C-alpha cells in the first residue's frame, strides 16, 4: 500500500462525496483525484522524478491537499513548510532537502521569489490563488494551478513506487538551532495512519475539522487519515476567529475536533458558547502539549457527546500513545499507552527498562518510526539505536516519562531545551541566534515561561552591548521578520548580565528555575 493509494481507493468508491471543505470551496473525491492526477502530470512534465522532493508552501487550503497527493502520484516526496516561514529559512529548507519544485500561492510568491535566486536545486514553481506571481527568475518553469493544469491528463500517471520509497520529509525544530528533516517512507506513514484510524475508530461518515497547520505532523495526519477512510475534511486556516470556527462546527455538523491546548484555552475563554453547537462532535483529541486537568472538565461540558483522547506523539514517529477516553477521569494527566502496532519502553541512561514510578527516556518501536534525519547521520544515530534484534532500530524520543503500576504513561519533561509553545516545538537556540543578529545584543538566552493560553510563552532575556539603544519592540519586530509566528518572543527582558556555569556557559537551568519560581509554579515543563 502506498500513501497515495488512499486517494485512489476513496475516489473510486466515493466519487461525488465531498472530500474537502475550505471557505466556500467544496471539493468532491472524484474531482480531487482528477486534479491531483493533472498536477502530477504537470510535475512530471516539469522534470520531477521518482524520489525528488517537492515543497508545499501554502496555508491550509484545498490546493495544499491536492498538491500532497499529486506529489505522491508523481512518485516524489512532499515537504510541507509552515506558511509563516520567512525567506532565509525557506531557502535553507529548500537547499537542505534539494527540492526541485515548490508549490505556493500568489500571497506567498514574494517570499518564494526571494528564495528562487538562492535555492540551487529549484527548477519549477507552481502557483495558485487570485494573484498570480510575476516575480521570480526566468530560469524556473512556472505553472499556474488555475490555467495550466487543464492541458494535462486526468488519468493516473504510470509512476509506481514501492512502500520503502520516500513519501515525505517533515521538518522539526532541533535544539542545535537548525531544523531537522524527518524522513518518512510510504510504509512509515501508512502504518501510522492505520494505527491512528484504528484507535480513533474513524468511520466513513466522520467530518473532521482541521485548523492545525498541514506542516505539523498532527495537522497533516488529519488530512491523510481523512482521505484514507473517505470522510469529509473541513479545512480552516487559523484559529484567529474562534467564533467562526464554532459556526463551521455547527453548520458542517463536524464529528471530530482535533486540537492543541492553546486552541482549547482560546475556545474556553469565550463566554457565550452553546454546547448544542458541538453535539455532533463524537471525538476530541489533544496532542502537542499536556491538557491541563482543569480544561478537561470544562471541555466535557462543552463537547457533551464526545469522547476525549489525550495523546502523545513526536514528528519522528508521528504518534505514539493515546489514553482510552474511559480512563480520562481516573488518570487525567496520563497520555495512555502505545497505539496499535507500536510498542514503548522507558529506559535508564544504560538502556535498561525502569520500574513503575521511575523516570526514564521513552523509546518507541514500530513501523511508524522514521528512517532518520535527512543528511544528518550523527543526529540520526543519536535518535535511532539498536533495538530488540540486531537488524532493527528503535527511536529514543528525548522525552522523560514514567509509568504507573498498570503501565499507563505520564510525560515528565523534555531532556533538551526545546520549548513547546502553542503545541509546537521552538528551539531556544534558533531564537537566540536570530536575536544575536542585532548588533546591539551582547548576550541572550531564551526560555519558556508558563502561559495559560500558549502553554509556554517565549521569553528572551537580553544583555545589550555597552551604550546600545534597543527596545523590547525592536527585538520582537526583528524576530517577527525572521522567524515563524509561534517562535517570536512574547516577552523581552533586559538585564545587565546572565548567570554562568563554572565552565562559563549560560546557566540555562538556573534561568528556567528562576522563571518557574517567579510564577510560583514548579514541576512539569510544557
Amino acid at each position: 500500500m502506498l500513501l497515495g493509494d488512499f486517494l485512489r481507493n476513496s475516489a473510486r468508491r466515493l466519487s461525488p462525496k465531498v472530500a474537502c471543505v475550505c471557505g466556500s470551496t467544496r471539493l468532491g473525491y472524484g474531482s480531487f483525484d482528477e486534479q491531483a492526477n493533472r498536477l502530477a502530470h504537470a510535475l512530471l512534465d516539469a522534470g520531477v522524478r521518482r524520489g525528488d522532493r517537492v515543497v508545499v508552501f501554502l496555508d491550509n487550503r484545498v490546493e495544499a491537499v491536492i498538491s500532497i497527493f499529486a506529489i505522491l502520484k508523481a512518485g516524489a516526496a512532499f515537504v510541507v513548510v509552515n506558511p509563516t516561514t520567512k525567506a532565509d529559512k525557506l531557502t535553507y529548507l529548500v537547499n537542505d532537502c534539494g527540492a526541485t519544485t515548490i508549490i505556493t500561492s500568489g500571497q506567498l510568491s514574494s517570499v518564494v521569489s526571494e528564495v528562487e535566486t538562492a535555492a540551487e536545486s529549484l527548477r519549477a514553481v507552481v502557483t495558485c490563488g487570485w494573484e498570480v506571481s510575476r516575480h521570480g527568475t526566468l530560469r524556473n518553469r512556472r505553472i499556474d494551478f488555475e490555467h495550466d493544469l487543464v492541458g494535462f491528463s486526468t488519468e493516473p500517471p504510470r509512476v509506481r513506487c514501492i512502500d520503502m520509497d520516500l513519501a515525505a520529509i517533515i521538518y522539526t525544530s532541533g535544539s542545535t538551532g537548525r531544523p531537522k528533516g524527518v524522513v518518512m517512507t510510504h510504509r512509515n506513514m501508512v502504518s501510522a495512519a492505520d494505527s491512528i484510524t484504528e484507535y480513533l475508530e474513524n468511520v466513513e461518515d466522520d467530518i473532521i475539522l482541521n485548523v492545525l497547520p498541514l506542516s505539523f505532523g498532527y495537522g497533516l495526519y488529519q488530512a491523510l487519515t481523512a482521505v484514507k477512510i473517505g470522510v469529509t475534511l473541513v479545512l480552516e486556516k487559523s484559529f484567529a476567529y474562534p467564533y467562526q470556527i464554532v459556526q463551521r462546527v455547527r453548520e458542517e455538523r463536524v464529528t471530530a475536533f482535533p486540537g492543541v491546548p492553546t486552541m482549547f484555552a482560546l475556545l474556553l475563554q469565550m463566554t457565550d458558547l452553546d454546547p448544542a453547537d458541538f453535539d455532533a462532535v463524537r471525538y476530541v483529541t489533544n496532542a502537542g502539549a499536556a491538557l491541563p486537568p482543569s480544561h478537561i472538565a470544562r471541555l466535557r461540558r462543552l463537547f457533551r457527546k464526545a469522547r476525549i483522547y489525550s495523546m502523545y506523539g513526536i514528528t519522528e514517529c508521528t504518534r505514539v500513545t493515546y489514553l482510552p477516553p474511559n480512563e480520562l477521569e481516573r488518570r487525567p494527566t496520563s497520555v495512555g499507552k502505545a497505539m496499535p502496532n507500536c510498542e514503548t519502553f522507558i529506559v535508564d541512561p544504560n538502556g535498561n527498562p525502569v520500574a513503575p514510578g521511575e523516570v526514564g527516556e521513552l523509546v518507541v518501536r514500530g513501523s511508524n518510526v522514521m528512517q532518520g534525519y535527512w543528511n544528518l547521520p550523527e543526529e540520526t544515530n543519536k535518535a535511532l539505536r539498536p533495538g530488540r534484534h540486531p537488524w532493527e532500530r528503535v527511536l529514543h524520543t528525548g522525552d522523560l516519562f514514567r509509568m504507573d503500576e498498570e503501565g499507563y504513561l505520564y510525560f515528565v519533561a523534555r531532556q533538551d531545551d526545546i520549548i513547546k509553545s502553542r503545541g509546537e516545538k521552538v528551539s531556544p537556540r534558533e531564537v537566540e541566534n536570530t536575536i544575536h543578529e542585532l548588533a546591539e545584543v551582547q548576550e541572550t538566552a531564551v526560555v519558556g515561561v508558563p502561559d495559560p493560553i500558549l502553554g509556554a510563552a517565549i521569553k528572551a532575556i537580553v544583555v545589550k552591548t555597552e551604550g546600545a539603544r534597543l527596545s523590547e519592540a525592536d527585538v520582537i519586530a526583528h524576530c517577527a521578520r525572521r522567524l515563524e509566528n509561534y517562535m517570536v518572543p512574547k516577552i523581552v527582558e533586559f538585564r545587565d548580565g546572565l548567570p554562568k556555569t563554572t565552565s562559563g556557559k549560560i546557566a540555562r537551568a538556573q534561568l528556567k528555575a528562576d522563571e518557574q519560581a517567579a510564577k510560583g509554579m514548579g514541576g512539569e515543563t510544557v
Partner: protein
Amino acid sequence: MREKIREFILSRFMLDAKPEDLKDGISFLETGVIDSTGVVELLAFLEAEFEIEVEDSEIVPENLDSVDSLCRYLESKGVTVSPP
C-alpha cells in the same frame, strides 16, 4: 479613527511595509498579516484605544478583517470619527 487603526496595524504587524502597502480593503487573514494571537492583540488595542467592549459573537472577519471593516465596526459601536 482610520489613521489610528492603520498606525497600529503597520507598527505591530507590517514592520517592513510602507504605509501605501496597507490597502484599506485587503483581508488580513488572506494575506497573513494577522494570525490567531494577533487577533487577541488587535482586540486588546480596540478595547483600550476606543473604549468599547467586544462581544464574542462580534469576533468575526466581517468586523475585523480589514481596515475598512474595522472602521465600519467601530462606527456601529458608536465610536465617532475623531477630528484630525
